[in-house]
C-alpha cells in the first residue's frame, strides 16, 4: 500500500498544479496603475508555493515508495547530513527566500498605502450600509455637506443624512448608486461606514479596504480602462452580504463630465 500511496501523491501533486499551470483560473485583467506590482508579487510567490508543495509531495512519494514494505531486517539509514543540514536549509533557503518576498512585497503595499493621494485627485465619498454602497460627489460647489446620522431617511433616498434645508453645501451634493469615475484620473475614495463593518473590493482594480465604523478611512487609485466592474462587499455584514454590490463605471473624461452635469439637474 505504500507504493500505492506514493502513486496517489504524485497524481495529487500533478492534478493540483495543473489548473494553475494551465491558466484555468486567471487573475482578472488589471485596470489599475499599481496592480502590476501586486500581480508580480502574487505570481512570484505562487511559483515558490507551488514548487514547495509539489516538491514536498514528490519527496514524500519517493520515500514512501522506497521505504515501505521493506523486507524484515532491512538496514535502517539516516538522512545524509541528519537534522543539521535540514535546519540550515530551512533557515537559509526557505527563510531567506520567504523574508525576501516580504521585503520586495513592501513596495506593492507601499504603493497603495504609503503614498498620499495627489492634491488634484477626484474626491468621492463611499458609504457602505446594509446592504448597498452609495457614493457622494461634492457637486458644482466642490464642497461636501455635513453628515447627520439622525437625518438619514432612506425611503426618501437621503442615505447619507444630508440636511439641504439648513446646510447650503449639501444642496448640490450628488448621490449615486454607481461609482462613476473618469479613466486615468486619480480617485481619492473616502470611506464611511453607516452601520456595521463592510468592505470595498474591486478585483480588477486590485483594491480592497474595510469600512470601519468610527474611523475615517480612504483609498486612492487610478483606473486605466473604460468599462463596468463589480464592487462587492467582502466583510460579513448581515443577511444581505451576498447581494451587496455596486458597479464601478469607468468613463472617458468627456462622458464623465456629461454624467456629472446630468446628475446636477
Amino acid at each position: 500500500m505504500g507504493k500505492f500511496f506514493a502513486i496517489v501523491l504524485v497524481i495529487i501533486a500533478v492534478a493540483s498544479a495543473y489548473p494553475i499551470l494551465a491558466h484555468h483560473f486567471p487573475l482578472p485583467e488589471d485596470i489599475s496603475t499599481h496592480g502590476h506590482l501586486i500581480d508580480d508579487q502574487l505570481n512570484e510567490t505562487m511559483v515558490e508555493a507551488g514548487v514547495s508543495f509539489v516538491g514536498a509531495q514528490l519527496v514524500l512519494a519517493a520515500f514512501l515508495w522506497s521505504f515501505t514494505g521493506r523486507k524484515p531486517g532491512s538496514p535502517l539509514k539516516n538522512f545524509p547530513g541528519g537534522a543539521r543540514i535540514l535546519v540550515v536549509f530551512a533557515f537559509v533557503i526557505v527563510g531567506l527566500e520567504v523574508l525576501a518576498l516580504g521585503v520586495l512585497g513592501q513596495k506593492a503595499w507601499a504603493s497603495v498605502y504609503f503614498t498620499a493621494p495627489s492634491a488634484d485627485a477626484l474626491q468621492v465619498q463611499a458609504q457602505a450600509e446594509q446592504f448597498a454602497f452609495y457614493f457622494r460627489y461634492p457637486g458644482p460647489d466642490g464642497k461636501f455637506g455635513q453628515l447627520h446620522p439622525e437625518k438619514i431617511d432612506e425611503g426618501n433616498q437621503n442615505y447619507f443624512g444630508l440636511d439641504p434645508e439648513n446646510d447650503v453645501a449639501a444642496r448640490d451634493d450628488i448621490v449615486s448608486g454607481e461609482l462613476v469615475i473618469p479613466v486615468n484620473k486619480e480617485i481619492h475614495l473616502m470611506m464611511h461606514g453607516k452601520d456595521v463593518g463592510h468592505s470595498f473590493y474591486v478585483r480588477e482594480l486590485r483594491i480592497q479596504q474595510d469600512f470601519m465604523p468610527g474611523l475615517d478611512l480612504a483609498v486612492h487609485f487610478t483606473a486605466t480602462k473604460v468599462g463596468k466592474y463589480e464592487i462587492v462587499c467582502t466583510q460579513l455584514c448581515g443577511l444581505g452580504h451576498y447581494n451587496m454590490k455596486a458597479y464601478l463605471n469607468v468613463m472617458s473624461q468627456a462622458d464623465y463630465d456629461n454624467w456629472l452635469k446630468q446628475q446636477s439637474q
Partner: protein
Amino acid sequence: MSETSAQQAHVHAPPEGFLRKYVFSLDHKVIGKQYYALALVAVFTGMFLSWLMRIHMVWPNAKIPGLELLSKVGAPGGIMTPEYYLSLMTMHGTLMVFFVLTNAPFAAFGNYFLPIQIGAEDMAFPRFNMMSFWTTFVAWAVLMLAFVIPDGPPIAGWTEYTPLSAIGKDAGPGMEWGASLWGISIALFCVGSLLGALNFIATTLDLRAKGMTLMRMPLCTWAWFITSCIALLAFAVLLPACILLILDRHAGTSFFIPAGIVASDRLQPHSGGSPLLWQHLFWFFGHPEVYIAILPSMGIVSHILINSMRKPLLSAKVVIYSMMSIGFLSYMVWGHHMFLSGMNPMSGLAFSFPTLTITIPATILTLIWLGSLYGANIQINSASLFALGFISMFVAGGVSGFLLAQPSIDIYLHATYFVVGHFHMVMGVASLFGVFAGTYFWFPKMTGRFMNEGLGKLHFWITFIGTYCIFMPFHYLGLIGNVRRYQSFVDDYMAPYLGVHKFMTIAALITGAGQLIFLFNLIYSRFKGKPAPDNPWNATSLEWSIPSPPPWNNFGGKHPVVYHDPFQYGVKGSKGDFVMQDSPEQVPASGD
C-alpha cells in the same frame, strides 16, 4: 525533586457508583473520553451543517426536504433563507474550531495520555479537570440552545465582528439572543480551557515519574505542554473580550460601538467604542488558537511516525524547539488577519515579518518528518496512513500561507476562498488527520480492542483523496476573487465558476459519507473489535507498559521508573527492535 511526595499527594481512592465512575469522574481517562465523545458529536453536527451549506450554495432556491423541521423561520417551505445560511455557517465554524479542534487533539487525547506518558497516576488537579470538562459541556449546550430559540443562531460568523455582533437585534435576524448565547457559550468554553491548561502545565512540571526528565517525554506530551502554555494566555484574552461583548449587548456599554451608527433606521444609543478593539482582542486569541489546533496533532503524528518507521526522528530536540518557536511566534502575528481593517499600514509590515518567519520552524518540522522517513522501515496501517497523510496535508495547507502572509497580496486574496481553502486544509484536514491517527493508534489501549483495519484503510483513502478534491479548488476560486461567506453567487464574474462549486459539493458529500465508516468502525469495534494485547504496536512509551484498557490508577499503585527516552527504535532490545522507556536494559549508545 519531590515528585514522589507530589505523586503521593494525589492518590485518590478508586471510584465507586455509576455517577462517580462514568459521569462526574475525576479520572483523567474518563474525562479524556468524555471530551472525545463531545468532539465526536460536535464534528458530525458541524459536518452536517457544512453539507447543508454546500448544497445551498449550489442550489440556493431548492427545497431541502426536512429542513423546515429544523427551522420554520430559517427555511420556509424548505428553502433556506440567506440569514439561515449564515447561522449554519456561524455554528459550523464555532463548533469546529472550539468544540472539535480544541477538544479532540488537545483536551481528549491530552487528558487521557499525558499523565500516563509521564508516569503519573492522574492529573495534578482531578477536580479542576472534571470541572473543566463539564464547563465545556455546558458551553456546548448553551451554544446548541441557539438552534431552538425563535430568532435562531447568530449570523456574524465564528469571528463575530463588531458592531454587527454588538448592537443587538437591529443588526439583523439571529443577532438578538443567538449572539448573546454565543458570547456566553464561548466565555464558558474559555473557563473550561483555562482550567484544563492549568492542569496540563502543573501535571507536566510536577508529576513526572522518576527518571522522566523533560527531554525524555514523548513528543506528543511536549506538544500538549506547549499547547497548554499557549492556551493559558490566549483564552485569558478571549474571556474578557466575550464579557465586554455581552456588556455592550445588554448593559448599554460601548466598548466596541462608536457613535453615529444607524441600523434598522435607528440611531444606536452608543458612542466612544472601537470595533477594531474587538478584532485585536479576538485575533490575539484567534491566531494562537489555530496553533492550539495544530500543535497537538503535530505531536501525535510525530509520536506515531516514530513508532511506524521503527526509527527515531532525526532530532527530537529540533522538533521540540521548533514547536516552542511556533508557540512563541504565534503571539506576534495576529495582525495578519487585519491587514485591511484600517490599522496603520505600518502594522501591515510589522505583522508580516513574524508571519513569514513562522515558515522557518514549520519548514524545519516538515523537513525533519520527511528526512526521517529516509532509510526507515515504514509500517503501513490506518494510524500511520493518517500520520503520513498529515505531512502531505500540512504542506498543502501551509504553502498558501506564503501568499496570505504578505499584505500586498492579501489586498487581493483577503476574504476570498483562498483563505477558506488555506485554513480548512491546515485546521480542518491536517489537524483532524492527527486526531484520526491518534484514534486508530490508541484505540487498542483505550478499549483493549483493535479498530477494523480494512475499514480504517478505506476511511483513509476516501478522506485523503476526498479532502484534496474538496479543498484544493477553494484556492483556485480564491485566485479569481470568489468572495467568502456568500450564501450564493449572484455576481456576474462568478457565473463561469459555478460548476467548480458543484464539484466541491459532491466531493464534500461523498467524503462526509466516508466519515460514517469511521463512526461505525469506532462504535462496532468498541464492542466487537479483535482483542488487542497491551503493546500491539511494539511501542516504547509508558502507555504501552500498562494493561489495555488501563486500570483506574494507571500503574496499579506502582510508581514507574524511566530509563530511556521514547525513541529507542531500531535497536536490539529484549522484546524486538525497540526498548521501552521503563525497561532497565542497557541500549548501545546512539548518536542522538
